[in-house]
């Protein structure tokens, strides 16, 4: 039974991974990371992606394992933090917490904030836990499989990632393409690593370094978000949360009733996390499914616990499983995973199948930290909610300049370059305009991160085939991935055609909106 052997091996490696965590410093970094993460998730204008980007330089002096443990814990913390703002303030800290506000905030309004938060945190934990189990047993298998990949296969997988944005995004496909290509173009600036030629530097020495995606992330997501928040003239009117052991215990006793919702949410989340659908659609889809199948359907939107469980399990399962393609193929499933990947590259670790062979200790230390990090996260958030809720009550006119300063510090520390702070501000304005015109930011960031990798695998594939595109259909594996990618790319056109045909068959005269 080779499969059972594989599972046993994974278990063995995992136990070894827990050994890596036995270092008390790593446990300390874990708690620091979670706390910083919740703080980032709670503060308006700071999200998981730019939070990790800002704090990345802090970890340069640590060992790669400690660093990634702290950074991934910031990520878990940010995921947890989003629920606090959604439930208490009706402000989704992250897009994937939007669905949590539907029932979480009404619960808080009725004075059940403690129950809503406990349910949210516990289901987040559950979703993340299922995803980590999946990563533990599936990652080595996928990595093993991917070891046989050539450049054409790698480019095909990257192509699928990018085409999925076009097919699955809610924005105009042309805008998705524009934003994505801007990312690729910015990634190409600087020294071409293959030919040594200078591209798009226009004689400037500063441009030699190229555009660092960390600066872009801090500007687009950090400064851009501040500008948007300011524009809305935000005033926080929050509900107070009383969480004590009794509330937690009572809620925990009632949660097993929703096991079907939780498992369904985890499956939806895992699927959407691995494919780059992402946490946001996963949370909405899970909420919709829960509503359709619930006995208390009419109560959804008025403060139904199930309506908190569903999106939170899915969002965390998606957020966590987004790390699976990052670790095994080097393709991050979310912007925050992209920042983590950037971190790995900075430490000289090349994410991808070889990581499981060459950096065993690192990979399994990280996976083990996902288990412990989520437990630590649950403890931290359940005990500190009132503290974080009070941070949200600090007026925006104090928070805003502090966040701008923190972003500037983060941008500067990436390369110790003053120009990067200026670039951050420029990216901030770009982020503001893009958000308002619904140009998506995630494909831009992902293209900026993966640009060099995608280009080099494309060039290598072309070199092998002497410029013949037929190499992308040279075997069933690469052929089916590329075909799937093209279906994704043309999905907006295909679905519009299908709808047109459908409405013609229905004999309807309604106008189909062209997106």
């Amino acid at each position, binding site marked *: 039974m080779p499969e059972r052997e594989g599972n046993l091996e994974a278990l063995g490696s995992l136990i070894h991974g827990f050994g890596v965590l036995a270092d008390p410093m790593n446990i300390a970094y874990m708690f620091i990371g979670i706390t910083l993460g919740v703080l980032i998730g709670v503060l308006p204008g700071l999200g998981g992606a730019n939070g990790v980007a800002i704090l990345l*330089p*802090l970890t*340069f*002096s640590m060992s790669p394992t400690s660093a990634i443990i702290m950074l991934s814990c910031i990520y878990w913390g940010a995921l947890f933090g989003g629920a606090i703002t959604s439930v208490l303030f009706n402000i989704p800290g992250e897009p994937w917490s939007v669905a949590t506000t539907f029932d979480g905030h009404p619960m808080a309004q009725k004075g059940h904030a403690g129950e809503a938060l406990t349910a949210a945190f516990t289901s987040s934990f559950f979703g993340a836990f299922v995803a980590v189990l999946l990563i533990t047993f599936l990652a080595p298998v996928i990595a093993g499989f991917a070891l046989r990949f050539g450049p054409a296969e790698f480019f095909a997988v990257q192509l699928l990632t990018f085409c999925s944005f076009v097919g699955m995004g809610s924005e*105009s*496909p*042309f*805008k998705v*393409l*524009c934003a994505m*290509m*801007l990312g*690729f*173009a910015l990634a*190409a600036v600087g020294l*071409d690593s*293959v*030919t040594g*030629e*200078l*591209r*798009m530097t226009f004689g400037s020495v500063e441009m030699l370094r190229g555009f660092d995606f960390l600066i872009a992330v801090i500007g687009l997501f950090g*400064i851009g978000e*501040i*500008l948007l928040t*300011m*524009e809305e*003239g935000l005033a926080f009117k929050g509900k107070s949360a009383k969480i004590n052991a009794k509330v937690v215990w009572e809620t925990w006793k009632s949660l097993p009733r929703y096991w079907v919702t939780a498992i369904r949410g985890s499956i939806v989340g895992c699927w959407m996390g691995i494919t780059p659908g992402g946490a946001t659609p996963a949370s909405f889809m899970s909420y919709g499914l829960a509503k359709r199948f619930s006995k208390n359907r009419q109560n959804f939107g008025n403060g139904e616990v199930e309506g908190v469980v569903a999106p939170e399990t899915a969002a965390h399962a998606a957020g966590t499983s987004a790390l699976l393609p990052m670790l095994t193929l080097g393709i991050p499933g979310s912007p925050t995973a992209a920042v983590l990947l950037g971190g790995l590259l900075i430490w000289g670790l090349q994410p991808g199948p070889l990581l499981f062979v060459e950096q065993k200790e690192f990979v399994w230390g990280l996976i083990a930290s996902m288990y412990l990090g989520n437990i630590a996260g649950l403890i931290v958030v359940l005990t500190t909610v009132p503290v974080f809720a009070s941070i949200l009550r600090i*007026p925006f*006119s*104090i928070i*805003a*300049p*502090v966040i*701008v*300063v*923190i972003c*500037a*510090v983060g941008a*500067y*520390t990436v390369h*110790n370059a*003053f120009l990067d*702070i*200026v670039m951050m*501000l420029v990216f*901030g*304005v770009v982020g*503001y*305009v893009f958000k*308002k*015109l619904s*140009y998506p930011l995630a494909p831009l960031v992902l293209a900026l991160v993966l640009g060099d990798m995608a*280009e080099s695998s*494309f*060039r290598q594939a*072309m*070199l092998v085939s002497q*410029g013949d595109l037929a190499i992308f259909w040279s075997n069933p594996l690469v052929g089916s991935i590329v075909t799937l990618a093209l279906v994704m790319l043309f999905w907006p056109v295909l679905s519009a055609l299908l709808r047109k045909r459908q409405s013609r068959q229905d004999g309807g005269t309604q106008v189909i909106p062209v997106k």
Partner: protein
Amino acid sequence: MEHGTQNSDPVVSNRTMEIVVAGLFALVALVVMADSIRVGNGWGSDGPKAGYFPFYVGLIMLVSSLATLTVNLWRHSGERTAFVEKHQLALVLKVLVPSAVFVILTAFLGIYLSAVLFIAFFMHWVGKYPLKTILPVAILVPAGLFVMFEIWFLVPLPKGPVETMFGF
């Protein structure tokens, strides 16, 4: 066609912004393509040249931006919706302008002193706080950053004449 909200006038319509941004994308695309042709976008003796990949990146960007441009030139509905209203723009500039000044000051005064001035100014100007609220925040936040970055994590941040005076 005046459809702005009662309390504020639109500064620029969504449609205009769509056209401007799509036009800028087209411009960037042309620059990318031109530079790719400069370094060579074809096949060299040892494989694809440096501009091979970026050229197509530019081409896709050009085609997509022209598509967005055409859609918006052709459709007039966007004229009615405001991209940004006067009072919104004022609020955005209230953050953006001081932030830009802070960034410029960083080059001369270092990041810590600039941060003190920036936070204090912002809290006074936007938040209308009394001095006894402003001073602790404006001083403690940069001081906290100093301890965290310079002392704990040994990451140097830009410093100016004041820090030099204290021997940093």
